[in-house]
């Protein structure tokens, strides 16, 4: 059961450093497993395992080309992450504005002769 959360969730899928590196290397375009292996100095079984997790959450897609399989980034699947960040940014800005106002009150309320 421990594995199910990793494979079901975009957040968990990108929480692994190697998987982020694989996504980075796919920014340039479609690549076969062999090209990713040589880009990242990882073993082929490692890369295949991470590609399987990324495929399961839809962050990468693949298609056969001759005897090879080419992997491609699906950036639209990062949307849940962007939505979370946007919400976080707004909440944070409002919170820091309140902190600003509170600091101003504190300083106005205190004698300035210290």
């Amino acid at each position, binding site marked *: 059961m421990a594995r199910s959360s990793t494979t079901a969730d975009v*957040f968990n899928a990108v*929480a692994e450093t190697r998987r982020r590196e694989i996504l980075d290397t796919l920014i340039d375009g479609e690549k076969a497993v062999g090209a990713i292996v040589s880009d990242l100095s990882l073993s082929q079984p490692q890369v295949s395992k991470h590609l399987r997790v990324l495929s399961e959450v839809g962050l990468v897609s693949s298609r056969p080309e001759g005897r090879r399989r080419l992997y491609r980034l699906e950036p639209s699947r990062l949307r849940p992450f962007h939505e979370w*960040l946007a919400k976080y940014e707004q909440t*944070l*800005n409002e919170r820091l504005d*309140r902190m*600003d106002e*509170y*600091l101003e009150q504190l300083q106005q309320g205190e004698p300035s002769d210290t």
Partner: protein
Amino acid sequence: MTPDRHGSAVVVFPSELEIVTTREFDAPLELVFEVLTKPEHVRNWFAPFTDVVTECSIDLRVGGDYHIVVVTEDGAECSFRGTYIEVEPPTRTVATWLFEGWPDADAVETVELHETDGVTTLTMRLAFRDQAGRDHMTTSDGQADSLDKLEDYLASLQRDVVSS
């Protein structure tokens, strides 16, 4: 007169799993640190007026826990908790960060303060756990780097102020 800094937080994403927020306050560094780390202060600004802070405990020492619970207008409970990893008053804290509404968004938050000419700059770096773990493993290189950037940022801000 102090400038109106509302909405001025600068939020950048240096990688997919890091969020760095920078915000200036017209207050001395020591006061900003107190307002960030003492429950009696945090209760006064953490939540919007429509919400209620029902729990706010901060045990400010290495290994100490903090827990903040906010109940929103519509009754939803938002709980933030974590444990301090580094505490260096009045300039820096590092703590784990978990928002219970987003159990997958487990992170480490580094808070740093700098004061220049009475203006204190707050920098909050939120890094998802394995990223932050990696930064800690590679010791202080990343931190020195980010402080350099903060210096550059402060310098650029002051140039902006002079030229405007």
